[in-house]
């Protein structure tokens, strides 16, 4: 088994695992040492095998009485290895003799080995009762089965004695050190044997419990590793983080989070609406709303039609209009309209809850940390390299991540140390904000103007292509040119890039709101138009059916077959139209994003990379160069896309499925694009630990997208011939209907009572008061927190400056003394070859500190070192010159001690 050991022990296990944790910024975390467990247990097994037979003679003189506390506690560490020990017992009996002989020859056994013996013996006795034991010493503690009454009593007595000893320790006239050791041993003994004294197989149980505890620890470690592996895309994100810094990684983390949320929403809608409808609803073609109209039938399967979500897709469960207004469907009597409504509401409810919850947990996390600001660089410098890395790819990643983290720290540092003209900065910032507000106002007016014009155009006949698409063109032009313009203006402000990113995000957000607003406006106009036409269509439908059934020319004896559903005239179903609109928007948005990445990043990178050889200037350093990852644009794209999803999912339940696909592909695609064709930002900066800003924007968008949906639900009448709410006056009537028909009457009364404004208004007031109170409390706490932190920092600064002044003063006068010390040490050097140089340097320093300030001494038990090193033949004067050196002196002390033994 020893051959398994690869490399220096240091690198063992580093290969595979190190790779797995590639790029992790914190080296050597707990999970790190896992692969070694197997070896450890093996090692233990073989150790047990060798040290089987103890003998009383070998016991050090330390234990005066038989069964004294001296040796009992030592059983403890060894106990854990019992299972292996037991297994090997059969074999060991042969070896025992040889071992014993050897041990006697050796005469002195190490301390550790001696510890192992008594327990070993116990095991043996416990296992094989008949085997005669030469040493009677431990017989009192042998296994339970063999325990006679008297032995049990004796142990009990001992335990009692120990307890008494613990209680009276204070009064004993012993030196402190002895008291301490005695106390610990007694405690360990009691702890050990109280468990063992339990009834029946208490001791077995104890061993079993120990074994289980060990297994449990191992299992927990494995499970932690497993959990890390289960986090989706963790490796990819860590990889990106190590190359591009935490700010870029924060986008991908956000994307992952969004994916999770969408998955839940998708499950909700898919499981509670689409699947029941497909399984239990009336099949396609049975009623008009589930059939493609006669006029569209010819083209309903063409790709160009399907691509626009018309044709068969329009009349499928993906859209609102497909659902029937039957109260219950199938043999389960599933209330589909009710479910549809409730799911629509809970999509928003869940989203709100999850966004707010993650915001809250982010803030909680961020207040607790941030205390290690003092030694950022020292930590990075001294502990960033993970010495378990044995794989060159991992090592490369680690290089990158160290470099990145250093760069991030540098940027932070530069920002905090920046000193400049405050007035100038203030002026520039005001100016920049003014300019940007002008831009925003201008673009807002432009959008308004264009939308107005488009409304006029829509009334006119034969408008040109440009006039028809004017709004879209203007919007995308704005979206293309405004962000870079903002960025240019933001350069005036000279913010820290992290704060700069927030500002940039906020500004582009304001710009995009215009986009959203025009879109919604156009949509609303459309809806109102359709609603206005609905009444006439309703009449037409009635008349058609009426005429069909009452028309003459049909044999009255045979009942007329019902009109084919495809032939029934029907309304425009504005809900489905809205859903299709959102669907198209999502898909086109996705395509545009992907094409932009492909052309703007990948092709550009290819061009720069391969044409660089034959170009007149340096493409890589000069004009096109490689693209940087656009964090703000991507985050906002994601957020607005999510807004579309929230708005559209009520009218197009299938939208969430599309979105889940989109997020999934974009995760892989963007990861690939970033790693293959982007370069890190010039100023890599550390993302704030909580991406609460993203969350805040998301919350805003969620709120904004909640408004139109709530408006349509509450105040627009649903279409008369499509969707689950057809025939009702308002969509929420389905609630009332359910309460009246399916709940007992008193519940209906309670609901009516709860809806009373006299109850709602006080409740809202109360909530506001609670919010105000909690808010002020948390503000006060955080202020106190900040003050305390400041105080600590100030204290440290003072201490530091104090010390350095003192030190400089004493430095000069000490120089001569120094040299003396060094001389002394040099004479001392011979007896301790290993660490002579350490000693020397230490002594030098001691001279420094000893005279400078006594306050800085590490509170180390000085006496211990003195006693440890003095009888060892070190020159007494050397020992006295630094009576209380440093703890690491012991290393040298040890090497000396070896010789006299």
């Amino acid at each position: 088994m020893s051959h398994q050991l690869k490399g220096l022990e240091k690198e063992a296990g580093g290969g595979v695992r190190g790779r797995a944790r590639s790029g992790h910024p914190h080296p050597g975390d707990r999970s790190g040492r896992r692969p070694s467990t197997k070896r450890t247990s093996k090692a233990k097994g073989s150790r047990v095998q060798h040290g089987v037979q103890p003998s009383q003679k070998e016991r050090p003189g330390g234990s005066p009485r038989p069964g004294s506390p001296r040796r009992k506690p030592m059983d403890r560490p060894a106990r854990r290895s019992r299972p292996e020990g037991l297994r090997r017992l059969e074999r060991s009996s042969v070896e025992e003799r040889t071992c014993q002989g050897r041990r006697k020859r050796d005469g002195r056994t190490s301390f550790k080995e001696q510890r192992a013996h008594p327990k070993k013996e116990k095991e043996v006795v416990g296992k094989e009762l008949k085997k005669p034991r030469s040493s009677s010493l431990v017989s009192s503690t042998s296994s339970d089965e063999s325990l006679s009454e008297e032995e049990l009593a004796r142990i009990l007595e001992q335990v009692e004695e120990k307890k008494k000893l613990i209680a009276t320790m204070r009064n004993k006239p012993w030196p402190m050190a002895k008291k301490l050791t005695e106390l610990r041993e007694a405690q360990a003994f009691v702890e050990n044997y109280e468990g063992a004294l339990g009834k029946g197989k208490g001791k077995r149980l104890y061993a079993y419990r120990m074994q289980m505890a060990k297994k449990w620890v191992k299992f927990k470690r494995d499970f932690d590793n497993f959990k890390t592996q289960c986090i989706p895309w963790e490796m990819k994100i860590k990889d990106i983080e190590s190359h591009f810094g935490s700010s870029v990684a924060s986008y991908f983390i956000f994307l992952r989070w969004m994916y999770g949320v969408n998955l839940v929403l998708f499950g909700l809608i898919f499981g509670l609406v689409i699947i029941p409808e497909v399984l239990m609803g009336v099949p396609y073609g049975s009623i008009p709303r589930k059939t493609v109209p006669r006029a569209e039938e010819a083209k309903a399967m063409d790709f160009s039609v399907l691509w626009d979500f018309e044709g068969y897709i329009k009349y499928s469960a993906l859209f609102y209009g497909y659902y029937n207004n039957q109260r219950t469907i199938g043999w389960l009597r599933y209330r589909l309209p009710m479910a549809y409504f409730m799911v629509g509401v809970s999509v928003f409810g869940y989203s709100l809850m999850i966004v707010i919850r993650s915001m809250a947990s982010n803030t909680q996390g961020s207040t607790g940390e941030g205390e290690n600001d003092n030694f950022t660089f020292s930590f990075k410098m001294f502990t960033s390299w993970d010495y378990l890395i044995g794989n060159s790819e991992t090592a490369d990643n680690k290089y990158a991540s160290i470099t990145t983290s250093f760069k991030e720290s540098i940027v932070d540092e530069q920002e905090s140390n920046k000193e400049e003209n405050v007035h100038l900065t203030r002026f520039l910032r005001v100016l920049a904000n003014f300019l940007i507000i002008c831009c925003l106002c201008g673009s807002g007016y432009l959008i308004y103007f264009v939308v107005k014009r488009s409304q006029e155009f829509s009334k006119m006949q034969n408008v040109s292509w440009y006039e028809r698409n004017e709004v879209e063109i203007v919007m995308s032009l704005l979206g293309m040119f405004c962000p870079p313009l903002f960025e240019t203006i933001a350069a005036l402000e000279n913010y820290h890039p992290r704060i700069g990113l927030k500002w940039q995000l906020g500004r582009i957000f304001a710009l995009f709101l215009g986009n959203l607003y025009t879109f919604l406006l156009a949509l609303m106009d459309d809806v109102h138009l359709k609603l206005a036409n609905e009444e006439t269509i309703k009449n037409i439908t009635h008349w058609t059916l009426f005429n069909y059934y009452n028309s003459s020319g049909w044999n009255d004896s045979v009942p007329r077959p019902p009109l084919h559903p495809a032939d029934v005239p029907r309304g425009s179903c504005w809900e489905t139209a809205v859903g299709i609109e959102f669907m198209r928007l999502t898909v086109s948005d996705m395509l545009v994003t992907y094409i932009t990445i492909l052309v703007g990043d990948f092709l550009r990178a290819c061009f720069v990379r391969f044409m660089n050889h034959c170009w007149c200037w340096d493409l890589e350093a000069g004009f096109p160069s490689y693209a940087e990852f656009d964090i703000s644009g991507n985050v906002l794209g994601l957020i607005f896309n999510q807004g579309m999803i929230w708005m559209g999912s009520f009218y197009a339940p299938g939208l969430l499925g599309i979105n889940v696909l989109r997020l999934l592909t974009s995760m892989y695609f963007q990861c690939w694009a970033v790693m293959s064709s982007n370069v890190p930002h010039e100023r890599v900066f550390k993302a704030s630990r909580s991406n609460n800003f993203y969350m805040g924007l998301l919350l805003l968008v969620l709120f904004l997208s909640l408004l139109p949906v709530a408006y349509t639900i509450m105040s627009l009448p649903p279409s008369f011939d499509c969707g689950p709410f057809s025939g009702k006056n308002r969509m929420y009537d389905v609630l009332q209907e359910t309460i009246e028909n399916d709940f007992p009457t008193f519940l209906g009364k309670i609901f009516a009572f709860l809806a009373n404004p006299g109850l709602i208004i006080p409740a809202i007031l109360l909530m506001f008061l609670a919010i105000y109170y909690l808010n002020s409390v948390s503000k006060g706490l955080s202020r106190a927190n900040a003050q305390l932190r400041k105080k600590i920092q100030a204290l440290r600064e003072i201490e530091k400056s104090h010390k350095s002044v003192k030190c400089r003063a004493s430095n000069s006068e000490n120089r001569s003394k120094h040299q003396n010390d060094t001389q002394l040490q040099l004479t001392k050097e011979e007896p301790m070859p290993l660490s002579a140089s350490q000693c020397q340097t230490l002594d030098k320093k001691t001279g420094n500190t000893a005279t400078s300030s006594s306050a800085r001494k590490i509170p180390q038990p000085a006496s211990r070192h003195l006693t440890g090193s003095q009888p060892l033949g070190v020159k007494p004067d050397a020992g006295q010159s630094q009576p209380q050196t440093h703890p690491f002196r012991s290393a040298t002390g040890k090497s000396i001690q070896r010789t006299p033994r």
Partner: protein
Amino acid sequence: MGTRSSHVAVIPDVDDIRRDTGFSQASLLRLYHRFRALDRNKKGYLSRMDLQQIGALAVNPLGDRIIDSFFPHGSQCVDFPGFVRVLAHFRPIENEDPGTRDPKQPEPLNSRMNKLRFAFQLYDLDGDGKISRQEMLQVLRLMVGVQVTEEQLESITDRTVQEADEDGDGAVSFLEFTKSLEKMNIEQKMSIRILK
């Protein structure tokens, strides 16, 4: 494993080594095998060349420093006790140790202080007990490679020194080193579980 070589008795001075380092017999045996495997021409000691051939050390920017730590005071060879003693720094700390240890004995090699000292030596290139600015720069260059400009490297070093330095001599002494890593879980980070 062979019948003879699997026994601890083949290791010279095994008991002394065990007392020194606290390794178990099994670990010692494994280390001994490893030692002999590294020792290519069976000369009974390891030279620098022997250690440099370990592939995993080659990717480590501080690999040379680690190898150096095996050879105190410029000697060119390390025997088995020396080899084990260096590795003993990485033995995990056992919880039971402080209670049962004889207070008269020196601190074991795997104590927190000794672990820190080992780490300190990696940075202290000239062995004068202080990590000077130059030494830090040198190590840093090894660690981050060429991707960072010299200027930035210097600012990093300056900041590190400024953070850790308490007596104002422009270098980090061991004491200051200890102080700055006070909150770091060294006992755990510098332990290798297999070295029980």
